[in-house]
């Protein structure tokens, strides 16, 4: 418990630091956020009024305090105004779908798979369009895009985006798990397990894969956080209104509050993923608990 509490304390500090840095950077960026909100053809008088309404004319420290007050109080904010449950839904579901089958692919890849390696190193956009072309346009098995309105439609709509993200990262996971497994399966305790007469599946799963999980858990944790905010191409092609697309649009529009909101959500996701990874470390390897 102390281990986890210590990790949580550090996590809160990291989130505060990241958001604060993002706030400073957002204020230093060239351009006028009020202008971007009002529209590029809005007249100066209207831009100025909107600047005042958004509090952008206040000193930076006042804006900073105002931002944290709204964030902590969970009151009405730009996040509420510009996002909807679909964003959060997509942000979580897509990475989950992608990472789940990454690990499964890696587990089964105890030998070199050149085709997977080749496919997985293609650009995600090309891959997304190819999958869309074959499975949605050609075969008609799956929807072209969107995320549906029912649970069944959600599931069907998830397949192609998750496949795209999954294939893209497959090479890395395949190599990672394969390298670990190749080394581990040559260890003495594995030979002993085989000599005891255990089935090959049990040897691989219990004595091999469990010991190979430490680096995999690390990679999954990092990937999950990155996918939360980084699946821009996939989100765009499949018209999933996710955080990545929202972040890029906010950056292009110089929309400071939305940039900050995305940073808050993404950094919290990464930190949460790391806390979970730390907890899993402790579970998988008792030596970590004493660190």
């Amino acid at each position, binding site marked *: 418990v102390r281990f986890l509490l210590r990790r949580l304390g550090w996590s809160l500090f990291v989130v505060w630091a990241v958001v604060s840095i993002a706030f400073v950077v957002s204020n230093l*960026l*060239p*351009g*006028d956020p009020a*202008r*971007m*909100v*009002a*529209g*590029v*053809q*809005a*007249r*100066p*008088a*209207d*831009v100025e*009024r*909107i600047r005042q*309404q958004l509090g952008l004319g206040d000193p930076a420290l006042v804006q900073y305090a105002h931002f944290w007050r709204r964030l902590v109080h969970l009151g009405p904010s730009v996040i509420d*105004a*510009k*996002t*909807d449950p*679909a964003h959060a839904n997509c942000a979580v579901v897509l990475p989950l779908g992608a990472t789940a089958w990454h690990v499964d692919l890696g587990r089964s890849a105890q030998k070199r798979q050149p085709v997977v390696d080749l496919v997985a190193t293609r650009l995600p956009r090309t891959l997304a*369009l190819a999958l*869309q*072309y074959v499975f*949605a*346009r050609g075969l008609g098995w799956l929807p*072209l*895009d*969107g*995320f549906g309105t029912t649970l069944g439609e959600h599931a069907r709509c998830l397949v192609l985006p998750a496949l795209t993200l999954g294939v893209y990262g497959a090479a890395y996971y395949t190599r990672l798990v394969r390298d670990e497994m190749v080394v581990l399966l040559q260890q003495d305790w594995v030979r002993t397990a085989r000599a005891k007469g255990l089935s090959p599946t049990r040897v691989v799963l219990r004595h091999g894969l469990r010991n190979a999980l430490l680096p995999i858990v690390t990679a999954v944790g990092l990937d999950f956080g990155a996918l939360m905010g980084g699946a821009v191409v996939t989100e*765009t*092609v499949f*018209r999933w*209104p996710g955080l990545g*697309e929202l972040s890029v649009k906010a950056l*292009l*529009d*110089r929309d400071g509050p939305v940039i900050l909101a995305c940073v808050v959500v993404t950094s919290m996701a990464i930190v949460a993923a790391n806390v979970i990874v730390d907890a899993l470390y402790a579970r998988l390897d008792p030596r970590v608990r004493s660190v």
Partner: protein
Amino acid sequence: MQDGAELTADDVKRSAERALHPTTPNPNASYFENLAGYEAYAAGRADHLTGVVVEGRYVVAFHLTKPDSTFPYLVALHTLRPTCKTAGDRYSDTWLPCGAGPFKLAPNDWQRGTSLRLVRYDGYFRPGLPYLDAVEWTFNMQALAQRVRFERGELDLARDLTDADWARFTTDARWRGLGVVEADTSIYGESMNTRIPPFDNVEVRRAVAAAIDREHQVLVQPSRMSVLTQALPRALLDDPSFAGQRYDYPAALEHMKKAGYPYDPETHEGGWPHPIEYLVYDQSLTFLTAQLVQQDLAKIGLVIHFKMVSYAAFLTLQERMGASAMSNGNWVLDYPDASSIFDPLFTTRAITPDGSFNTAFYSNTRFDELAARAHLETDATVRHALYREANAILCDEAPWAFTFGHHTFDMRQPYVHDFASHPVWPLDVSHVWVDRAGVALEHVLGGGLR
């Protein structure tokens, strides 16, 4: 109205006060600065707009501080649309849109960035309209998905198609004739800062205007771009007898000579001796056309160096006095009148040290006078004559080299009828009707059904 109440003059006044209240984040409020009492109301010194007067149950009068022939267009902007009483006296971003239009938004039928579903409002004031039970708009669909869905018949209309799709649909016998080209309501051009050398020299600007091959430029996006030789979109002023700015290479060389910077295309000697900084941002159409401009201007002795920035930085620098010698400018009509372009882009009063929409920092007394007189002139014929003269001044003095207009290309299914793009409301579907059964029968029985 869509909440069942009757639309009266009181609703018009309440909606105007709601839209123009100082706490409303209205990006168009200052358009109404000529409305009597606007200044005090916008500053929070008055509780009501004195210029909007209810004169009867169905009569409302707008009083202006000075005559303004563009005011009827301004009143028609969506800003002053009548809203239901349920919308209240003050704006809130949580209100459910409710007005007097042909379609209404049902709760939870708007997925931000994804789709919007509108259902027919049976109490619409135009009898019998609209014909459709509901309309669902889908946003941010990728080109491939849109084309495939349209071909499968899953979409009734496809908007803003790519050049490849345009080529396919306009040459395929199954789809030919079903395309709809939206009106050109925008202008694009090369803005030259008239206060920075060499563009403080009108002959250099004329040389640039004559050196740019517009026919070449529109090949970048042939389905969406059309040659523009004047300051106004063709949807506003289409006079074939007016030459405007045309590609004329010998004339461009002659203008460079008159400017004092003669250039010899054979020896590549002469021209302006310094590189000219051209502000550009990536991820835009103009990043492509800028490269063509660079090639064209090199042929008259003007060397262009690109300065790549983000879009936000682009706007800041382009509109700052003395910060940028040349950049691409573009503008979309806010309302269908020449003043929507002339006033913000080319009048002296639009010049400010920062945030100047007059990015050429161009000033001409005669032009200012014409633009001001046009506002006061209520006779449409006289007003158009004033605009034509103002347009001619801009083409001659060339604060911009006007290059192309931009429009979108849409496709409709054969069973979609009466979809015609309107220059002001391009997606008005209140008159659209569909007849899938008729088209299917026609397909089976042949043309005899007609």
